[in-house]
């Protein structure tokens, strides 16, 4: 029984990490209708930057996370202002452009950091395990679980309880009206894009401590995030949370029961859901 509790906790902590990454993805899609396939690459970049600041420069875990968020948010700024502005309004071209950007970022990361595996150092207070009813579980992973929950609450409050959130949601539905009110919607959208990117960076730094960082980690996290948003419905915060929990649990159960087909175990339920709801559990037509 203790074994299953352990696997379920593993699934939930992985789900929390997936939520952190996928919420950024879904935020950008839901509000800006941009599918940013460079999100996985931004995750990996954030991880490497976090590692460099935390371990190589010795600034510690939390500064590493902040550095990862800040620099990836900056990368998001450059991506939005430097490239995406040329294809605004063309959904498919935007997606494919970000895919090209993903290839470039990954390749450049390979040049700078090589093919080695890095592990982000966890902070001292989060090292070791905690005893829950006789089950020893790593403190760090519980911290990630908590972080995921806190982020969900904060994001929900931001979107549904603040003026900024109201402006963002209104801007999605009726951009002209918001502009007519004298509000610079472009700037709000840009901020959203940077915020979503920052979550990818944060995910990289946080995930780098237990998933480790290596050249193809970006593709793996991207496909997990896609599974999350496909199941949950693109653009839905609640969907991202539900999707993350499902994918996280399925993945950890799959790894125990069918180690060679862990990928496959997510695929079955995803197929089933799509058969009934092509836009995902919480998706609505654009």
């Amino acid at each position, binding site marked *: 029984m203790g074994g299953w509790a352990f696997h379920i906790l593993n699934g939930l902590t992985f789900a929390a990490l997936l939520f952190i990454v996928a919420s950024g993805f879904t935020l950008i899609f839901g509000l800006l209708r941009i599918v940013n396939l460079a999100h996985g690459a931004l995750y990996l970049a954030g991880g490497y930057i976090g590692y460099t600041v935390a371990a190589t420069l010795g600034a510690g875990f939390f500064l590493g996370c902040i550095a990862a968020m800040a620099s990836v948010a900056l990368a998001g700024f450059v991506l939005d202002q430097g490239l995406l502005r040329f*294809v605004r309004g063309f959904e498919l071209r935007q997606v*494919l*452009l970000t895919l090209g*950007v993903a290839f*470039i970022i990954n390749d450049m990361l390979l040049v700078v950091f090589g093919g080695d595996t890095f592990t982000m150092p966890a902070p001292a207070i989060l090292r070791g395990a905690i005893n829950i009813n006789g089950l020893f579980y790593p403190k760090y992973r519980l911290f990630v679980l908590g972080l995921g929950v806190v982020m969900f609450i904060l994001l929900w409050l931001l979107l549904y309880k603040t003026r900024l959130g109201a402006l963002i949601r209104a801007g999605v539905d009726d951009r002209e009206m918001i502009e007519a009110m004298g509000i610079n919607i472009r700037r709000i959208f840009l901020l959203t894009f940077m915020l979503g990117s920052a979550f990818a960076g944060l995910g990289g730094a946080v995930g780098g401590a237990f998933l480790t960082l290596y050249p193809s980690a970006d593709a793996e996290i991207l496909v997990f995030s896609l599974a999350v948003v496909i199941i949950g419905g693109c653009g839905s915060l609640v969907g991202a949370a539900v999707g993350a929990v499902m994918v996280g649990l399925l993945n950890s159960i799959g790894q125990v029961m069918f180690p060679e087909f862990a*990928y496959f175990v997510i695929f079955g339920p995803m197929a089933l859901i799509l058969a009934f709801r092509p836009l995902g559990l919480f998706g609505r037509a654009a």
Partner: protein
Amino acid sequence: MTGLLASSRAARLGGLAVLIGALAFALVPLVAPTYQVSIFTEILIFAVLAMAVDILAGYTGRTPLCHGAIFGVATYVTIYWHTNVSEHLVLAMAAGVVAATLVAAVFALLAIRTSGVYFLLLTLALGMIVWGVCLRWTAVTGGENGLRGSLRPGAIADHVHFYYVVFAVAAVVAFAMWRFVRSSFGLTLRGIRDSESRMRALGYNVSLHLFVAFTVSGFFAGIAGALYALFNEFASPSTVALSQSVEGLLMAVAGGIGTLFGAFIGAGVVIGLENFASLYTERWMSVLGLMFVLTMIFAPEGILGRVRDLLSRGRH
């Protein structure tokens, strides 16, 4: 009436271009040294893949990001079959094509209800699953080490002989695809691309049409993959990776979405650039990514699309 004349003139021009292109490809081995012949072999194989992508992206209005994986399944199965089941080459290739078609059919069942960006994301995720399986199912796929086999029998071991085999297959397959997109079935696909709701209202079974289009497209991608097994005699997770799907799509886009034979130009440009770039740098992924970014910004309608645009603008 003038429109009809103009379109028949365009058709004649197109036919002439195809004839010249085919002739050029037929003459390649007579003028090019061995190494270049193998590059042209690769171009022909990938042109088949790009045409398969174009059936969906150009003629059905669904942009897939999983065709590299479908292609790679055929490569894997062909090599596996040849090494472990039977030495009969044609059987092995047939097994590869059948496997690819089946994978495409399963993908189609899942993907046809979505469209636009959702379709792209879903096919991307499906393709990545194939990659994950090839990477992890070590007992069958050899994991990172991949599968190696020596498939080409003596008769086509020679570069030039092999080139002509691939040329013949590519020509037949290209003709088949051309017939397919020009058939009445192909016309309904274009109808779906332009207005799904109208086709539904006219009584067409849109889902069934999309399913068939996807599966047929996967079948052709499988043929390309089986040929690639002969060409490369090696399959690894990178054969089914996202970059392969991206390359296939880039070839279709660069050639011009909705211009079936543009795939040959697209494949030529992408593989030519790959070989040219590899002389100077190992950063092929960056070059590929950059090509994608620049194409999306400057030439989303591709090379042939551009030409066709200019021609039609000249007429007005």
